[in-house]
């Protein structure tokens, strides 16, 4: 059992300190795949937030009932139900978003952020705290997706939410909406998150530094920033 945190701290954890994408490095697949346009990023963020809050609350409420040996299938059943709900709602009311997100919408079921929070938080904490955790993490996820897709759409297509921003004489950098551009933005945003945290006077956790890197053993820059 982790020690109890205040509800405010639980809520704000997802913004930066434990941001699901930039600090916990969860949900990278949808992050890289759907962030070619702000509309898609925002839609994905809101859909995932809704599922996250609902599944966190239900799993937290059932945490004493679910036997720990079969907890993962139980979590998945709960999450899948909410994803089905969201999928049906979006298909009915925002068919454009459904078409844009394609397979990534039903794949929210296996989004590591949602399963990760169920396992790490909701199964150990009360309903209110879990709901706040889901909301905070969801907002953190959505902020990153919007930022991510904003950068990629602006540089890669010259538009924001479909409106032309860059003049037509400036050719957009199509690499930004291709996979390599996604990884560039990912790396830069991740570095930025750690930079901001360091500036705020907090030491970034060891896992975020060289300790987590598979190439650390032979990296010439190992330990330079520590």
């Amino acid at each position, binding site marked *: 059992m982790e020690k109890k945190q205040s509800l405010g701290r639980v809520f704000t954890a997802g913004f930066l300190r434990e941001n699901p994408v930039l600090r916990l490095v969860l949900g990278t697949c949808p992050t890289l795949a759907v962030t070619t346009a702000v509309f898609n990023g925002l839609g994905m963020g809101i859909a995932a937030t809704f599922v996250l809050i609902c599944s966190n609350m239900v799993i937290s409420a059932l945490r004493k009932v679910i036997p720990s040996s079969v907890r993962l299938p139980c979590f998945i059943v709960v999450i899948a139900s909410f994803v089905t709900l969201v999928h049906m709602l979006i298909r009915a009311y925002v068919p454009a978003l459904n078409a844009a997100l394609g397979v990534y919408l039903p794949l929210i079921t296996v989004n590591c952020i949602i399963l990760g929070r169920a396992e790490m938080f909701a199964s150990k904490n009360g309903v209110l705290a879990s709901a706040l955790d889901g909301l905070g993490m969801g907002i953190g996820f959505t902020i990153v997706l919007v930022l991510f897709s904003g950068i990629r759409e602006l540089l890669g297509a010259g538009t924001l939410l479909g409106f032309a921003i860059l003049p037509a004489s*400036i*050719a*957009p*950098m*199509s*690499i*930004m909406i*291709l996979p*390599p551009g996604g990884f*560039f933005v990912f*790396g*830069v945003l991740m*570095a930025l998150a750690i930079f901001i945290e360091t500036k705020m006077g907090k030491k970034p956790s060891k896992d975020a530094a060289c300790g987590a890197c598979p*190439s650390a053993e*032979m*990296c*010439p*820059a190992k330990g*330079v920033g520590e």
Partner: protein
Amino acid sequence: MEDRKLIVSPSPHILSKHSTTRNIMLMVVIALLPTLAAAAIIFGWEVLLLTGVTVAACVGFETLYCVIMKKKVPVGDFSAVVTGLILAFNLPPSFPLWMAVIGAFVAIVIVKQLFGGIGFNFANPALVGRIVLQLSFTGRMITYIYPQSWSGVDALATATPMYALHNGPLPLMDLLLGTHAGVLGETCALTLIIGGAFLIATKVISPVIPLTYVGGVFAFKFLLGLAGGAAASASALSALSSILAGGLLLGAFFMATDYTTSPYTRSGKFVYGLLLAIVTTAIREWAGMVEGVSYALLLCNLLVPYINELSRQRPMGVGRGKRKGAA
């Protein structure tokens, strides 16, 4: 510590009193100048403007980044100048200047400084700058304008020799002198060889990587020609064109030999050169692209830490496998 003069620094390592990073980079600049002059003669003075802009942008971004991040400004070591020159050599003439500045930004800020500055870049900065531009502005990057002033036409958009190579061997003299379309620094094989020979003669670069790389491409192309049923002389001719055309010489002498992104040991360098030759030939022969030097370099740059690890020299008397006695 100071009076013992023990300086721990990333490669390029200091070899003697006369070989500092600054001197090495100056040598590289000197070696690149003949090719720049050749490009100016072949493509016109705009080439000098483009080169000036990339060099200025590289130096500018490096200074700006280091000032903002409160790091020591390393412009005096000329490495940003070299990056700017090589980046310009990788762009077609009449390339829009603002796009070239983006390439310089990617090279210096993203690839070099964000990873820790000189000695820490994971790949050759100019190379990644080129590839990012290639993927971003594909149409612009493959528009080669060749001013054929002596044939009466003002300017001509033509195919590069790499495209033409599929239709048989080319006049070798044209390839040697560089009087054909292409990116700035790849066309004139003669000045590239002179520059490379100068660097080898002054021991700035080791001859192992360029020789295995160029020799490997020649050998593979020759063998492929023979396997395809061509006569030995025809295969040799087409293999010779394949090393003179395209970016191979520029890549082999000036980009593959980057200290940070090439292996330390001689055996490692040999493996690296051979690997480059294999990947380049494979891309040229069987992939959807006509030129494979830049992607081969990028791939092999990423493999360098592994090559270093595998080709590490063992102290005498220490058995294989366990490195207990090391360090």
